[in-house]
């Protein structure tokens, strides 16, 4: 491991006065600092206890996430933008639907422009956002994400700009090559952008997140595809059968994901089912899973595009709620010391009375 020499900050220099003050604290503590009281627990009242069964008075061991709401919004926007870039390249490659290609390129580019803004506004020191790119650090999912996003924003922006040039001015070969190449690179980085967010929160100390380190990348990928398809349909591409099919597939995967969560009955997964976080996750799951799936299947047979628009609106709301729900679940998970302390599974024990302890 490389080691750096001691930095300028903190840069207090010990002097006679500072050392005298520390000696004074030490002297005062040795004279007056000894705790001689009986404590609080024996005085009665059902206080929480500190023990091997209850942990430290139920005080959380882990710190709650300190991200602003911009982060779950980014997880949503980045996921949709990444999937839109993939849709753009697939449509370019396999169809002649130039309108769809243009729309998908623009969804990717706008998402690629909004995402860094969201992340920068979440930072405690926004002016230092470029510090994210001062190192290349594979073991940091946040660092990998910053590089991925920087590349994606550039490529998706270039692809959309080339598309604009081609349609407005000249359909020349060099412009076409630039659009296709940038589009391909945007798709490649978009695939990472839509899935890495699952790694980002999965590889943390938060129990409910790291318990789903494997399923989260899939979950967020499906959610991203679902959102991208829905945005494109609501932009007027509700005649594309491919989009409906893709949306149905994503929703079907979200149904599977919902069943997977609901059938897990351990304490780690409680935040996904109980309380405010549970309500958000469940609502998000229904809105992006079974509801749009049913609407899309109905649209396939009836050909009613209103059903597809409804499916799109539900999926978008559901995908956004899903990200908020998972972040909120992380908060609830961090507040519960049971999992990281490996405490026995039972109701929080209340304190014993003085006579119980003396007995």
């Amino acid at each position, binding site marked *: 491991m490389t080691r750096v020499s001691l930095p300028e900050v903190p840069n207090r220099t010990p002097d006679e006065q500072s050392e005298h003050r520390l000696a004074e604290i030490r002297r005062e503590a040795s004279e007056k600092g000894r705790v001689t009281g009986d404590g609080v627990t024996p005085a009665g009242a059902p206080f929480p206890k500190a023990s091997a069964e209850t942990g430290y008075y139920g005080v959380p061991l882990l710190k709650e996430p300190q991200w602003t709401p911009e982060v779950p919004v980014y997880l949503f926007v980045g996921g949709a933008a990444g999937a839109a870039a*993939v849709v753009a390249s697939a449509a370019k*490659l396999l*169809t002649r639907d130039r309108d769809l290609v243009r729309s998908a390129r623009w969804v990717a580019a706008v998402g690629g422009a909004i995402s860094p803004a969201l992340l920068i506004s979440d930072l405690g020191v926004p002016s230092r956002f470029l510090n994210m790119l001062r190192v290349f650090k594979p073991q940091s999912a946040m660092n990998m994400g910053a590089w991925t996003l920087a590349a994606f924003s550039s490529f998706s922006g270039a692809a959309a700009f080339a598309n604009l040039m081609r349609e407005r001015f000249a359909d020349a070969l060099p412009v076409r090559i630039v659009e296709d190449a940038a589009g391909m690179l945007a798709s490649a980085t978009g695939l990472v952008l*839509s899935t890495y967010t699952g790694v980002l929160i999965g590889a943390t*100390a938060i129990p409910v997140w790291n318990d789903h380190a494997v399923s989260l990348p899939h979950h967020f990928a499906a959610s991203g595809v679902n959102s991208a398809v829905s945005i494109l349909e609501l932009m007027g591409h509700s005649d594309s059968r491919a989009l409906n099919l893709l949306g149905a597939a994503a929703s079907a995967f979200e149904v599977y994901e919902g069943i997977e969560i609901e059938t897990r009955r351990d304490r780690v997964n409680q935040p996904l089912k109980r309380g405010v976080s549970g309500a958000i996750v469940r609502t998000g799951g229904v809105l992006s899973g079974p509801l749009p799936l049913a609407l899309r299947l109905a649209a396939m047979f009836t050909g009613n595009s209103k059903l597809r628009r409804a499916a799109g609106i539900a999926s978008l709301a559901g995908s956004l709620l899903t990200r908020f729900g998972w972040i909120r679940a992380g908060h609830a998970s961090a507040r519960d010391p049971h999992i990281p*302390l490996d405490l026995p599974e039972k109701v929080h024990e209340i304190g014993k009375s003085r006579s119980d302890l003396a007995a």
Partner: protein
Amino acid sequence: MNHTDTYPTNGHHTNGHHTSAFLTDSTLCIGCKACEVACKEWNEVSADGYDWSGHSYDNTQAVGHSTWRHVKFVENPTVPGEGGNAAGQLPAWGFSSDVCKHCEVAGCLEACPTGAIVRMETGAVFVQPDVCNGCAYCVVSCPFGVVEKNKEDGRAFKCTFCSDRQAAGLKPACAQACPTESIKFGEINELRDEAKLRLEALKDRGVNDAVIYDPVDTSVKGIHAFFLLRGDPRAYNLPPKPEVPTTYLKKAWSSAAVAAGAMLGATLLAFLGDNHR
């Protein structure tokens, strides 16, 4: 046992600096909080306010961005035969001064996307305040819940191991102010040996529930601030199996690769079936 075989400290001695450590011996702690006061004064850390926890003498509650030493108050029932207390005597106080563990493999350091968190030549894990951009990813990556973002300032803070004092050849402020030498500061292998000797001495005196908390068998691979406690470390909010979040990276990235492949495949398939347009 030769510690250099167990702990990868070989490279630590090449630059003339030894790897320093804390041994916090809670059997010597009197709960005076001189360490908390000294730490705040030396490091000029802001106040925490006057919140009452209502469930013990501990109103500091936890280490955080403005609390780098924190004395825990555990009121144990007396167990005759465990040594130190007679039956009926109330309570058998357990005090323990908590601090950043300066993990051998540190979750915060691995997670930091800017490289602001570094390993110092003393072995300390240090957040460089002139580099940190306040992304708060370290906060969710610490298995001990130590590092925290100061919302007003915007950056993350935690114990610096008094790197400035160490550079001047002095003990950290908490160890300097501790009136009972419950907080010991020294070279890591010497302190690990000292902890073992102390544990044996305590057991000889009948303190049978004394334990050393130093999770060397987990992915954290040991800590640079270890504890000698009585009873179960969980009562002191010390996790039995702390895991560095990087242990989840391999399966998470593998899963992301599969998900990306599925996403690409599904999109291509959907448009392949629609190419008559």
